[in-house]
């Protein structure tokens, strides 16, 4: 008993020193739900950044794009390329969806890696990238699921379900399982990567505050961008896959 309480005390002491808070949330009570307030706050900041920069970029559109407009057109071209390579000919209606996914995740990840969120203290938990929270990534992944089901059903009608018994009916369980593993893998991949990035930086900062975390932060920036690209590409690939018919 003594040993146990002693070890718990040491643990608490270690916890206070490290100051790494994982799983601490700033709860809001909305209706009967507990909501992670810090995620919402950072999401709103990200949304504000995106909407504000987009509004700035399209404020005075010109034929020959100047800096801001040029940059955003470049981003749009990039997203369009991604969706075109993944979805195929009928990519046009899906560009907004893929673009929203990519931009939101990308700006979220980079805001977590670049903005000094820790300046602002919350009653509980701490501000970080919205994609740092599993709820955000699961929501995004479920949106992707809904999107590819919608795409398949509108494109091919009920014939869409024919893909479950292709190439052989034996694969039916695996094909059904795939619908569950797709959002699962999407959400866990994004969540895990971003959380890991931020944790590594936080731990390194708590150990050696200066210089040493910088390469890891760059690595984090790189990974964040890659993760956003992977999420968008996979979402587009799933949509394209459910839209292409086996004739």
């Amino acid at each position, binding site marked *: *008993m003594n040993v*146990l*309480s002693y070890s*718990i005390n040491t643990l*608490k002491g270690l916890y206070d020193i490290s*100051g790494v808070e994982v799983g*601490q949330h700033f709860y809001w009570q909305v209706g009967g739900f507990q909501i992670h307030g810090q995620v919402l706050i950072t999401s709103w900041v990200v949304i504000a950044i995106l909407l504000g920069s987009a509004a700035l970029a399209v404020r005075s559109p010109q*034929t*020959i*794009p100047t*800096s801001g407009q*040029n*940059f955003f*057109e*470049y981003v749009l071209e990039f997203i369009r390329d991604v969706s075109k390579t993944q979805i195929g000919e009928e990519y046009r209606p899906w560009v907004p969806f893929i673009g929203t996914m990519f931009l939101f995740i990308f700006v979220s990840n980079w805001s977590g*890696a*670049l*903005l*000094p969120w*820790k*300046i*602002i*203290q*919350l*009653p*509980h*938990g701490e501000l970080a990238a919205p994609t740092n929270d599993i709820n955000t990534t699961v929501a995004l992944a479920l949106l992707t699921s809904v999107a590819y089901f919608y795409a398949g059903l509108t494109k091919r009608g009920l014939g869409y379900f024919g893909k479950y018994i292709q190439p052989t009916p034996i694969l039916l369980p695996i094909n059904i399982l795939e619908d569950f593993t797709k959002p699962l893998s999407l959400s866990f991949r994004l969540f895990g990567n971003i959380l890991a990035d931020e944790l590594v*930086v936080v731990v390194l*900062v708590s150990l050696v*505050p*200066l*210089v040493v*975390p*910088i390469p890891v*932060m*760059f690595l984090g*920036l790189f990974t964040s961008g890659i993760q956003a690209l992977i999420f968008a590409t996979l979402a587009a690939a799933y949509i394209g896959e459910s839209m292409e018919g086996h004739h």
Partner: protein
Amino acid sequence: MKNVTDSCVFLVHWPSAGSFGFNTDILATNLINLSVVFGVLIFFGKGVCADNLLSLSDLLDNRKQRILNTIRNSEELRGKAIEQLEKARARLKKVEMEADQFRINGYSEIEREKMNLINSTYKTLEQLENYKNETINFEQQKAINEVRQQVFQQALQGALGTLNSCLNNELHLRTINANIGMFGAMNEITD
């Protein structure tokens, strides 16, 4: 044991100790590292060093240049197309005028031909009319002549019959005398 569960609860439910505020600890908020990262990003983004491939501004400049070139090319093409259109339009106008000329010429030719044809037909018609009239006259004349000849012949035959039937000596002599007297009177008159 109670202690353990307590601390577990403690770990799960963080006491609501803090409130909103600012963390002024520069090291804890990682400000220095963040500013370094930011600086490096901006450095590479702006492309301060000349030949780096990662530079965002170079990328954007290239894109702008490409758009400019495309616009210029298409404007050139547009100018050329407009020129060609003008040329084609001018040619069309010329051809149309020629066609009009031809049409007018053709119409007048046709009109003239028509008039000629009408005139010649009219003349032919007139000639035929004349022929007809002449033929009718001729026929009439012929018929009249025939009738006249027949009447004359009948009269002659009648006279001859009458003469043959009722010519006796006395009458013969009287007639001869009358004729001689007539001839004598005629002779006197001619003398």
